[in-house]
């Protein structure tokens, strides 16, 4: 009986949901969007998606091998590789997708330490890099309902996308229903608003993403668009055009919710959603590209740890509420005393009382060495040998 026994730490039951199921949910939610792209643009869209996913996973394994680490089975590169083509037009050349994937994996993920350590959204950076490099290819959209050749130069008819018309201040030539169903030209996966929203709701129901992030992004964004419309006509129509053009809805459900780079608590997610709505709005109004979502997202990723820190400081105060209140009271008393008596008063602050202590749950005697396999103490010193020299030189 005891041959097979293994050590494990408490708790011994774990949630059935795991990283694998979460990632599989996201991949499953991306598939209907690919089906819609197949419907509108033909088989090339599927091949693009396959290319992206394959490229990302191969590159991440390659990166791990280059760093002499053991490659870990990981589904996140596949998601990155599936999201990138959906942000691009369906007739994009393959090398653009491959370059975006390479940037996403080799620049954003691996130098920062792979999955879970990246400070920026890989898909957003990959897309932004190719959008800056080949704007004439990335922002030229084929008209819908025509099959595009799977390989070689595309001969599909080009149409003006609603996002571009909006950035010129013109009313797009498509009605709202067209844009909801996705028959307006635009990025391959972001035009089918209804399907994208349905997939997003599927993810929310499966708890792969938190509902707060997309809602707290879309609602303030819609409000901003209502208040400052770029085009004439009824404000509602303008709102629909703003919301349904570009990658706003797709990004809100699939890119903004990326767990690694978003804040951890609901309150932080709320703040991040609202602030990214403002930044995306500004980028789209004043930015050079008609689609500033990816750039705005990268800028917002910098701020998400700051929201976490704000939440933590609020909680810290609430945890030590009593001692804070006591010290403030003591201080006011002290001031009063000083005013009244002008006598030196010895200030005593009572030791922090812990508010309503929960009884400590005792884990049954874990012996010291059993708790965790000892890890090698990693060097996390940023200023390594060489930099000390530099500092020496720079110190004045």
């Amino acid at each position, binding site marked *: 009986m005891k041959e097979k026994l293994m050590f494990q730490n408490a708790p011994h039951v774990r949630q059935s949901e795991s990283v694998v199921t979460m990632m599989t949910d996201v991949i499953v939610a991306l598939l209907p969007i690919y089906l819609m792209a197949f419907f509108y643009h033909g088989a090339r869209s599927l091949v693009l998606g396959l290319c992206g996913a394959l490229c990302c996973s191969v590159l991440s394994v390659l990166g791990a091998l280059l760093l002499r680490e053991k490659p870990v089975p990981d589904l996140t590169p596949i998601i990155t590789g599936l999201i990138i083509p959906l942000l691009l037009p369906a007739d994009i050349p393959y090398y653009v997708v491959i*370059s975006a994937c390479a940037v996403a994996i080799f*620049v954003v993920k691996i*130098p920062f330490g792979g999955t879970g350590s990246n400070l920026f959204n890989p898909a957003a950076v990959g897309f932004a*890099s190719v959008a*800056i*490099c*080949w704007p004439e290819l990335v922002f030229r959209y084929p008209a819908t309902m025509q099959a595009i050749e799977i390989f070689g130069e595309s001969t599909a008819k080009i149409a003006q996308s609603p996002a571009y018309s909006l950035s010129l201040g013109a009313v797009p030539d498509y009605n709202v229903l067209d844009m909801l169903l996705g028959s307006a030209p635009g990025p391959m996966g972001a035009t089918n608003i209804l399907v994208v929203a349905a997939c997003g709701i599927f993810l929310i129901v499966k708890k792969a993403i938190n509902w707060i992030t997309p809602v707290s992004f879309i609602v303030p964004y819609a409000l901003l668009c209502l208040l400052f419309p770029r085009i004439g006509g009824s404000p509602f129509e303008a709102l629909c055009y703003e919301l349904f053009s570009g990658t706003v809805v797709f990004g809100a459900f699939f890119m903004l919710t990326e767990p690694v780079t978003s804040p951890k608590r609901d309150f932080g997610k709320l703040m991040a959603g609202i602030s990214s709505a403002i930044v995306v709005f500004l980028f789209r109004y004043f930015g050079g590209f008609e689609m500033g979502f990816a750039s705005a997202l990268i800028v917002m990723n910098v701020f998400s740890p700051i929201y976490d820190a704000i939440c933590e400081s609020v909680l810290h105060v609430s945890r030590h509420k009593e001692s804070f209140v006591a010290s403030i009271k003591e201080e006011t008393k002290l001031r009063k005393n000083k005013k009244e008596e002008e006598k030196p008063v010895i200030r005593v602050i009572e030791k922090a009382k812990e508010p309503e202590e929960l009884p400590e749950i005792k884990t049954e005697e874990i012996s010291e060495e059993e708790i965790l396999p000892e890890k090698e103490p990693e060097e996390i010193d940023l200023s390594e040998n*060489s*930099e000390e*020299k*530099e500092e*020496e*030189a*720079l110190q*004045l």
Partner: protein
Amino acid sequence: MKSELKESLGYIFFKNPVLVLGLIIGHLAAGDTNLQNAAALSITFFFVTVPVMLFASTIGKKIPAGFNLVCYALFSAAMLVPAYSLSGSISATIFDSSGIYPALLAVSTVPIIYSSKIAEKQTPIKAIFSGLCITAGFIITAVILGAAREFLGSGSLWGFKLADAIYPAAKLPFWGFILLGFMAAIVNWIKEIFKKSEKGEEEGA
């Protein structure tokens, strides 16, 4: 003596002023977009480093404490004139394509702070030698980066068209930063290999 020589030689690779010490990053990231710019930057860097370090090691010690930085800055600014007359022969449009970045080298960290920190304590010959080594390290980095960016960005080298542009964005400053980052990582990697082999030798001995 030998250790000092070794330390100065280190500026070429293991203590590369750009990739390891992280000193003149901005000029390379934004200004070093092709080989001609790299040449202009290298010439200017030579003129603002070696003479200023010589100046610092000879006269610098006699200048009162608060004013030595001003003197170095003015001297390196004066050195811009020969540097410009020399780099003007590279091509007719070199000043327009390289922009303000060669001129900025006159007040970069190396002539201002390295001369006050290092050269003032050295004899003139040693100061010239370490200045030359720093320049060599800078030139190697600038030439590699400039060639890579020119080839990727416009498919040419020194203005001669070799192929179609592969990756036009390589000329932008952010790719300069990222490429420099990867070059620095490669230097770290090579350093690591050297360390390992040295350790192996010691253990073997």
